[in-house]
């Protein structure tokens, strides 16, 4: 047997043992998930004892297939995207043994949802400008400030928090990274209503919120380094999976064009087909990117993919509203809601058009992405950084 076959056979044995001891048909969902974690079959690329077996990330796909085939429950990963995608790898990389043991298991099972307290009204693209202050008081930190664009904050038990612990040094050096208890009385969560009418995100106000020093991740003053590890994992998560033709936003417009001949306008046809071609080329570029990664040639195309995705979703949803004519003048519902799961393609065309405006802002604005491509890929001169060497407290704001 090849090494790969040996690994798979071993995983099969472990999955069978898990299913044998915990029959999904009879055992409680949460009990099964906890047992799966303890068997190292939660995320096999994590270390043994922390829900994994120290294998590669790709092997988890195999485990998931086996479990799904047996009718096992899953941990509903979309409900805890920040926890699984960002908090967990950061805790693994920078957490103490005690932190790993305390936080990773209920995070993975979904018992504890996580959110991210990074962005602030005054620290968006310039994240290192965060002004939320954490002041030491014996064994705890007292935190004051305002965070924004926090999805899941109203459901979260814990948050990863970036705060300023030393205002007397340049901005990148004076931050620390914490795990914040969202049930602390100093934490107030308010829905942040968007142009779509709904509140997908929250504002979080921290007023003398208390964080034990034992919940600091990484050394004091090293918050920027830890935060970058978090953001790196966010980018790994982008890249995505193989999708069929027309599975993206263009599918809606194509469907409308096919099924509603009365809406077809000759003057819109060339634009429709240009966007169709661009969407298909973007889809194939995703395939090419995955092929490059599989061939061990990771390239810088990922940042370009997001630029293209944002532009296309905006153009396509704009065309969709125009095609619909009179119907495009209506909107499904402006009532304030707090959706559980964000789906860019959900709801009506008007919603899709408005929600797509966020695609070129969230997760790095298109302008910042262009800077990154120009500087890191094309080796063009970096933007001037006027605040680089002055203490944070002296930066004009």
């Amino acid at each position: 047997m090849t090494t790969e076959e040996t690994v798979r056979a071993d995983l099969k044995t472990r999955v069978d043992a898990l299913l044998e001891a915990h029959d999904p048909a009879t055992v409680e969902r949460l009990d099964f998930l906890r047992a799966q974690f303890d068997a190292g079959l939660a995320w096999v690329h994590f270390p043994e004892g922390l829900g994994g077996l120290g294998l590669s990330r790709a092997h988890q796909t195999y485990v998931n297939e086996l479990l799904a085939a047996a009718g096992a429950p899953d941990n509903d990963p979309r409900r805890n995207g920040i926890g699984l995608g960002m908090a967990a790898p950061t805790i693994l990389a920078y957490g103490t043994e005690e932190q790993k043991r305390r936080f990773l298991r209920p995070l993975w099972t979904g018992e504890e949802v996580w959110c991210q307290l990074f962005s602030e009204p005054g620290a968006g693209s310039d994240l290192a400008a965060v002004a939320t202050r954490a002041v030491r008081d014996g064994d705890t930190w007292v935190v004051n400030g305002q965070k924004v664009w926090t999805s899941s904050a109203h459901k979260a038990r814990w948050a990863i928090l970036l705060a300023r612990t030393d205002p007397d040094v340049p901005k990148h050096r004076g931050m620390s990274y914490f795990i914040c208890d969202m049930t602390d009385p100093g934490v107030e969560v308010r829905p942040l209503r968007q142009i779509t009418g709904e509140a997908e995100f929250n504002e979080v106000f921290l007023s003398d919120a208390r964080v034990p020093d034992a919940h600091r991740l990484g050394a004091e003053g090293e918050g920027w380094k830890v935060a970058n590890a978090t953001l790196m994992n966010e980018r790994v998560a982008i890249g995505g999976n193989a999708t069929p033709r027309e599975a993206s936003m263009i599918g809606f417009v194509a469907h409308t064009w096919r099924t509603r001949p009365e809406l077809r306008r000759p003057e819109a046809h060339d634009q429709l087909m240009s966007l169709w071609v661009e969407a298909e080329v973007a889809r194939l570029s995703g395939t090419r990117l995955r092929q490059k990664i599989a061939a061990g040639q990771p390239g810088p195309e990922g940042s370009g993919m997001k630029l293209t995705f944002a532009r296309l979703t905006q153009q396509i949803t704009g065309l969709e509203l125009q095609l619909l004519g009179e119907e495009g003048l209506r909107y499904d519902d402006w009532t304030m809601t707090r959706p559980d799961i964000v789906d860019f393609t959900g709801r009506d065309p008007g919603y899709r058009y408005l929600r797509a405006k966020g695609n070129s802002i969230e997760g790095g604005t298109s302008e910042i992405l262009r800077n990154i491509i120009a500087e890191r890929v094309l080796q063009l001169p970096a933007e001037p950084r006027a605040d680089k060497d002055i203490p944070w407290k002296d930066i004009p704001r």
Partner: protein
Amino acid sequence: MNDANLLYTDVETALQESVRDLLTDRCAPEKVIATYDGDRELQPKLWRSLALDLGLAGLLVPEERGGAGASAREAAAVLEELGRFAAPVPFLTSSVIATEALLRAGDDALLATVAGGERTAAVVVPFSTSPDELRATVRVDGQGALRGRVTSVAGAVDADVLLVPVEVADGVELHAVEAGAARITPVVSLDMTRQLADVDLDGASSTRVVEDGGDRAVRAALELGAALMASEQLGVAQWCLDTTVGYLRDRTQFGRSVGGFQALKHRLADLYVMTESTRTAARYAATTAADDDPDRHVAALMAKSYCSDSAVRAAEECVQLHGGIGMTWEHPAHLYLKRAKADQVALGNPQATRRRLGEVVDLPMPTT
């Protein structure tokens, strides 16, 4: 259709390197610019080196039919390099389009001489012809000779043998005519690195290559030409990007490198993203053609649409971002602008291509 390999194989990379080395040595920009002033000294020797020394003429032809037994993927890899140099050689017209017509037609004797690089061939249609809009205008006269006029033919200037679609009562035949038997008048062309010619047939004798279905062979050849020209357009866009980035890094104004100004660096970032998308579209067209994948027709139409426009945009940005020097005769940017614009119009302009694609993928233009 998700299995198509969109990367370069080691063989393709090695092939590109040898073509690039030869062109670096023999195809200097000033010599290419000189073709616009009527100096055609460069072409014959350069083409001989590529066709015979590197054996590129027979790339698409199976070994048992006298060729190198490679595929559309390798031909695309070569075209990418030819585009990068705006090389004035008839590879696309003879080794891709005419060769594909002969492969489909089944004339192995003629095919072998073209594949061996001994003779150069050209399909006699206006270079602007879209694969779906082929119209034969040449007819057979009472004496069995060919009569007719076809304007703006690419590759005819370099050709030893002409492949002529001929209209007959029950369809289209494909005839081979010795270049000496036709009147070939070079025309002043937008892109003199692929100079066009008007071809007059005033009673030329010919050999019938295909009796029935000559139009099918020629359409397939033009479609492959469009699919692989996308790689040439990729080479054009890549040169424009690389050259512009290099220039803006070095160029200083207002006491700093102009490549550091956001108004310019953002445009270069967009150009980079677009060039990578161009590579995706071009590779997909090449690999589906090589595999005779059912999606090859859609892939060719997508590539023609996308890569035509992106090469033009890259060349236009190249001229603009170079400033004054980009408008000069001396700087090679204009070679790429002219090649890109001519390629955009050639083999079906992008709007016509998208209209056709709409029919193929069931998103038709309204009929009213």
